[in-house]
């Protein structure tokens, strides 16, 4: 890790907290509007207009929350690990803050995916929890998030906390495919050929288009939430810099 590669100047500019603060304040409204529109549209479409599944009936409408949440929880972990790697290798402050902000968001989204999965299970399997491969993987993902988050809060020094979190999330990233594979394999061993809700059913466009809308909406929401958190983090860490002081005085 002692080596660091030289990168073009804009790359380092990207790492300047102030630059990120400025650019994100311009981007935020756009993503916020997009997120609200897409989520409202997708939810209304999914709840009221999409046809029910021929097997599961209306409980199928939970898919419009569960799948986007599951997808987002996984991408969030990836972003956290990649941002952590960038901050480890190039000592980029913003990447560190982004990585730190990812953990609580990702954890709550993983909880959402788990909760919706469990609730979906009740009408479908008649039980609140079934050791379904995807639900189990999601539970482990939540554990990984909790680990990163706890480690972060256990270390007082912010720089060290960021680096330690980055190492752990990278280790987790290497492990995720192994965990997924092992859990899927374990699942086939113990529950051969049960009908799983989360397996992609053959969906007609009226069903998957709102799903797509919801997924994009969730990503836009994520962009908003991440920027908000990172901005607060920037303010707190840069509170003694002149530009933050000016912001405070301007209030």
């Amino acid at each position, binding site marked *: 890790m*002692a*080596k*660091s590669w030289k990168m073009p100047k804009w790359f380092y500019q990207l790492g300047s907290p102030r630059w990120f603060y400025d650019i994100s304040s311009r981007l935020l409204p756009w993503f916020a509007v997009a997120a609200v529109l897409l989520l409202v549209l997708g939810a209304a479409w999914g709840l009221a207009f999409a046809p029910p599944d021929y097997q599961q009936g209306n409980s199928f409408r939970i898919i419009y929350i569960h799948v986007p949440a599951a997808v987002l929880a996984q991408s969030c972990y990836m972003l956290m690990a990649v941002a952590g790697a960038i901050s480890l290798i190039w000592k980029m402050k913003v990447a560190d803050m982004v990585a730190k902000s990812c953990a609580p968001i990702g954890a709550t989204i993983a909880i959402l995916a788990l909760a919706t999965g469990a609730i979906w299970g009740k009408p479908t399997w008649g039980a609140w929890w079934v050791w379904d491969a995807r639900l189990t993987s999601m539970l482990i993902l939540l554990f990984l998030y909790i680990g990163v988050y706890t480690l972060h809060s256990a270390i007082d*020094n912010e*720089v*060290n906390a960021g680096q330690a979190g980055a190492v752990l999330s990278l280790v987790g990233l290497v492990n995720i495919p192994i965990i997924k594979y092992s859990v899927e394999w374990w699942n086939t061993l113990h529950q051969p050929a049960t009908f799983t809700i989360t397996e992609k059913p053959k969906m007609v466009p009226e069903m998957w288009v709102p799903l797509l809308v919801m997924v994009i909406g969730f990503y836009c929401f994520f962009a908003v939430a991440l920027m908000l958190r990172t901005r607060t983090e920037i303010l707190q860490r840069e509170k*003694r810099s002149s530009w933050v002081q000016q912001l405070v005085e301007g209030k």
Partner: protein
Amino acid sequence: MSTPLLEAKQLFCERDERVLFEGLDFALNAGEVLQVEGPNGSGKTTLLRILSGLSSAFEGDIFFQGEPVSEVRDNFLQSLLYFGHLPGVKATLTPEENLRWYAALHPETDTMRERILEALENVGLFGYEDVPCHSLSAGQNRRVSLARLYLSHAPLWILDEPFTAIDKKGVAAKEALIEKHAAAGGSVILTTHHELAIKNLRQVNLGRIETAELREQPND
């Protein structure tokens, strides 16, 4: 002019929202002894940890023999002897075992038994070479660690408070050792509360205490 062995440029370090030092420049040439001065809490230990490479919580550049230290790290470590707050002595091992283990980690360290015994004798631990370190006092443990100075051939010594737990006579002996090391072309950077009687001693001062914190306190 030859390139200095160790050179620091524009070092900046901040700890717990307090600036310990900023714009710190100094160079350490072969044959020089540099004492880092400053009141308690001024960052002397932090500076030594930064120079040794243990801590990376700083901004600025450190050069070893004219090259950025991160690029010649192996070379730098080969030439370094670091004596920190913690002695680095295992309680369950004997002094001799401890020194042999150190020698395994750090090439350029003598491993001949006579030399080890001699080094232990020099720090006042003659006859203790096979006593487990947990039955030695804290001061004696530090002296086990100090015995490394007699064994190492590393040119650069970074010593953090090497004279605590040593009596007057011992201090004089260590001063002589440091002078001899410098005379042979080695370099030393150290912190100490003792008045040093060493020729050609140079100082770098971290004295200034940042007043930002005082401002925070609501006294009038």
